[in-house]
């Protein structure tokens, strides 16, 4: 077959959401020739779906806010499992990252004195989220996109070519990170429209691919969220951490079925919305856990007073961190106090005037009106938990965003682990993207610039990556041996054979496999977990993995969604196993990991990170054999929190999280 086209870059960024675009801007501004590769059109990444805002302690609405308070809230939200240095950098740098957006043309909602307005959100002590109505993600992505365009305009003026220093390969997918020895040498990719393969040669690759939600049936995530970056890192030899922590956002739409899982922004609660069960009771007052008792109102009256007088009242428990609210809703429904379609009621209609609702929550008004025939200014919404975010991801160095063990590999945003610990606070994602996107891009550029020789791309790896990507066009036979076409066979390049060999079992539909995977993860590794169910999940994932090798594809390579999904299945299966294995191993409940059989938080687990790595990095045996897992776990102890950061908390609070011996260190 013809050799994939190759081009040379200093930095390749995989993903064009908030983290990827911010990384690309930083890399390009550091002087690196930068390529961005993204599955969707430029400007369509999942970041556009972020609604509530960007958390940054600018103190515009309550001057009491500062980075220390933000740091404290973030650690509490993550139940102290956070990689504390990341939480520190994040809290310190978020305001600069938000202000910088204004210099690139972003238009946030304003305070009466003309500053950036900030709204309340779950787990944040002060109004902290910079926002634009409830479409903040769109503003973020558009601002970054337009900043990239203006950099390209600059390059055009200087070099005569828009893409001489910064190019976006849109609607393209990376399937492998290539390596020269231990080091990154580039990425193997295909273009979705033509189906052609190409290689981006680069000493630095920044993963910014987002999350894994499409492995679950009920999710707020878009189709792109197939864990690509997580899988690329694993396959390149970089470990993942905290994969057992998956955030189920408490409020997703539940009716009609076709929109089940679609996000209902936390701003609804931040702006005054309340949760009620079918008996009309504001049930969240019954679910304030011990660790948060000091910070949340004990009565509806106190909670209601807080909106106008936050200094002498405590916040209502509807604004607890997401994990707490999601579990509470789950319990109410289980106890038979759920709404007609199996959720609870979220009501703003009795709390705000229709005009205020439409101004502050325009997308929510529109979404319910258009998709569910519900007028949220007049009636309550029905909501329930939906898979929203993965706290786990690539283990990275806090300062540089460099992946552990693979020089040249970086990760930022949702695909990186550690920052949010066991549970992310709302609003901390967009700020995470900006803070660590910038760091990843700058460090990736610096690393590329520091090398005296470029790592070489190995032809054998390119051929193997091409064969792997073509496998779905020639589904495997029943004996379990792969029948990958030779790279130079005609079938590999031209529109290939439509049907598998007649003696083989029928090819599997990638769509069916995907649905079964989603059902498995949803039912067995979902919001409430039990050992037997997760063991069952691992068995099913093994079977699905074996069947996925027979995932067949009809048609040819030009814009073929069946083929694209067949390739994404590899990633979702790898990630699904990481989640199930780590969740089975962690015998406690903390943040986004709730064990029915281990319901308490265990201080001994606080300092333990579970690292996921490939069990059999060299071979394909594990992948082919349903009995064997692909993922091996190791326990790693995390470094103690720096004393000056611990000193930001009262001792009485710390004893709820830290083990006895940690006080003596």
């Amino acid at each position, binding site marked *: 077959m013809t050799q994939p086209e190759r081009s040379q870059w200093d930095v390749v960024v995989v993903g064009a959401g908030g983290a990827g675009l911010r990384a690309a801007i930083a890399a390009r501004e550091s002087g690196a020739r930068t390529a961005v590769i993204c599955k969707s*059109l430029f400007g369509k990444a999942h970041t556009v779906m972020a609604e509530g805002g960007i958390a940054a302690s600018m103190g515009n609405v309550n001057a009491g806010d500062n980075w220390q308070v933000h740091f404290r809230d973030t650690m509490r939200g993550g139940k102290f499992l956070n990689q504390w240095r990341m939480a520190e950098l994040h809290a310190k740098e978020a305001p600069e990252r938000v*202000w910088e957006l204004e210099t*690139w043309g972003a*238009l946030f*909602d304003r305070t009466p004195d003309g500053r950036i307005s900030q709204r309340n959100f779950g787990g944040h002590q002060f109004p902290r989220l910079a926002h634009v109505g409830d479409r903040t993600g769109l503003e973020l992505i558009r601002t970054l996109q337009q900043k990239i365009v203006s950099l390209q305009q600059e390059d055009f003026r200087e070099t005569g070519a828009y893409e001489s220093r910064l190019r976006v390969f849109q609607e393209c997918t990376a399937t492998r990170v290539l390596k020269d020895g231990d080091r990154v040498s580039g990425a193997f990719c295909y273009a979705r429209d033509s189906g052609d393969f190409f290689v981006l040669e680069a000493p630095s690759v920044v993963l910014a691919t987002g999350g894994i939600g499409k492995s679950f049936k009920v999710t707020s995530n878009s189709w792109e969220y197939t864990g690509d970056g997580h899988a690329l890192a694993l396959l390149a030899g970089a470990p993942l951490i905290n994969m057992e922590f998956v955030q189920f956002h408490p409020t997703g739409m539940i009716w*009609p079925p076709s929109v089940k899982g679609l996000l209902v922004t936390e701003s609804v609660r931040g702006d005054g919305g309340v949760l009620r069960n079918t008996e009309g009771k504001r049930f969240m007052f019954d679910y304030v856990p011990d660790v948060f008792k000091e910070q949340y109102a004990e009565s509806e009256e106190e909670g209601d007073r807080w909106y106008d007088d936050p200094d002498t009242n405590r916040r209502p428990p509807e604004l607890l961190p997401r994990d707490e609210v999601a579990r509470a809703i789950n319990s109410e429904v289980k106890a038979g106090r759920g709404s007609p379609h199996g959720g609870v009621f979220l009501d703003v209609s009795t709390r705000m005037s229709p005009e205020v609702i439409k101004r502050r929550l325009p997308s929510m008004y529109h979404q319910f009106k*258009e998709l569910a025939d519900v007028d949220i200014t007049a009636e309550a919404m029905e909501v329930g938990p939906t898979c929203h975010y993965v706290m786990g991801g690539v283990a990275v160095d806090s300062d540089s965003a460099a992946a552990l063990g693979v020089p040249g590999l970086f990760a930022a945003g949702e695909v990186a682990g550690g920052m949010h610990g066991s549970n992310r606070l709302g609003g901390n994602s967009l700020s995470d993207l900006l803070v660590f996107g910038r760091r990843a891009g700058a460090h990736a550029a610096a690393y590329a610039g520091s090398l005296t020789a470029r790592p070489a791309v190995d032809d054998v790896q390119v051929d193997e990556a091409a064969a792997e990507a073509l496998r779905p066009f020639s589904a495997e036979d029943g004996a379990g041996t792969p029948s990958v076409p030779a790279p130079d066979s005609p079938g590999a390049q031209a529109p290939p054979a439509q049907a598998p060999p007649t003696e083989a079992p029928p090819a599997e*539909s990638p769509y069916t496999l995907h649905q079964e995977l989603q059902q498995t993860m949803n039912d067995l590794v979902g919001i409430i977990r039990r050992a037997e169910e997760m063991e069952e999940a691992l068995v099913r994932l093994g079977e699905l993995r074996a069947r996925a090798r027979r995932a067949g594809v009809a048609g*040819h390579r*030009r814009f073929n969604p069946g083929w694209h999904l067949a390739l994404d299945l590899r990633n979702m299966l790898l990630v699904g196993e990481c989640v199930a294995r780590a969740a089975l191993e962690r015998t406690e409940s903390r943040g986004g990991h709730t064990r029915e059989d281990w319901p308490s938080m265990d201080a001994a687990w606080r300092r333990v990170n579970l690292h996921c790595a490939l069990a059999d990095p060299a071979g394909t045996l594990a992948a082919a054999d349903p009995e064997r897992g692909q993922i091996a776990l190791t326990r790693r102890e995390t470094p103690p929190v720096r004393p000056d950061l611990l000193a930001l908390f009262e001792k009485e609070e710390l004893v709820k999280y830290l083990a006895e011996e940690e006080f003596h260190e």
Partner: protein
Amino acid sequence: MSTSTGAAASATSYEARFRVWRGDADGGGLHDFRVEVNDGEVVLDIIHRIQATQAPDLAVRWNCKAGKCGSCSAEVNGRPRLMCMTRMTDFARDETLTVTPLRAFPVLRDLVTDVSFNYEKAREVPGFVPPPGVAAGEYRMDQVDVDRSQEFRKCIECYLCQNTCHVVRDHEENKTAFAGPRFLMRVAELDMHPLDAAAQAGLDRRRTAQEEHGLGYCNITKCCTDVCPEGIKITDNALIPLKERAADRKYDPLVWLGSKIRRRGAASGPGA
């Protein structure tokens, strides 16, 4: 489009008739499908069901399925729409739905078109020019002054307006000189940004709207506004004011000068 007889009917599923355009740059045609429809579904759900059960390689572009990303634009019974926001209850159960790709852009495959025209036009509009001497963190703007540009920034770049605008829909030859409603609106957005310092940098956005982005081609038929899924008043709030401002600039130097002085006054306030 017919009225909603389906909405009042029972919640049970039914079988709908779909005609979907399949093909590529070399040609193609409408293919018939009979496909199950369930309660609350939108056209994109049905396209996905066709994909999962009958035509696994049916090409369709989509992303959020929530009306937020603007990816799944297509023409349903000839009307440009987001498939994810077009409910099946908008149509009678016995009506055959015809789904075709956007007409103004070249087909790549099936329902997916080559929208690179829009990215080229985006590059021709110079970006926000930050006000000199105002540090990050020192920007001060009143909500009433950002309201106008914020409306335009609601744009999800679905390109339905670009596809619908008759200046280019059936006139390929106009594409070179005409940026289209979306990018004229972008010029208006920047021109109305309270702190944009383009003028100080020697860039006259109103003149370029007229001379470089083809504002004069627009004869305010409001087709763009009609199809905007975000309900942005593109014509009334962006294009007509931009035309007025361009005209002021052209014919009335005093008005122009006055507006500049007022704008400068507003922009120098920030440090306060």
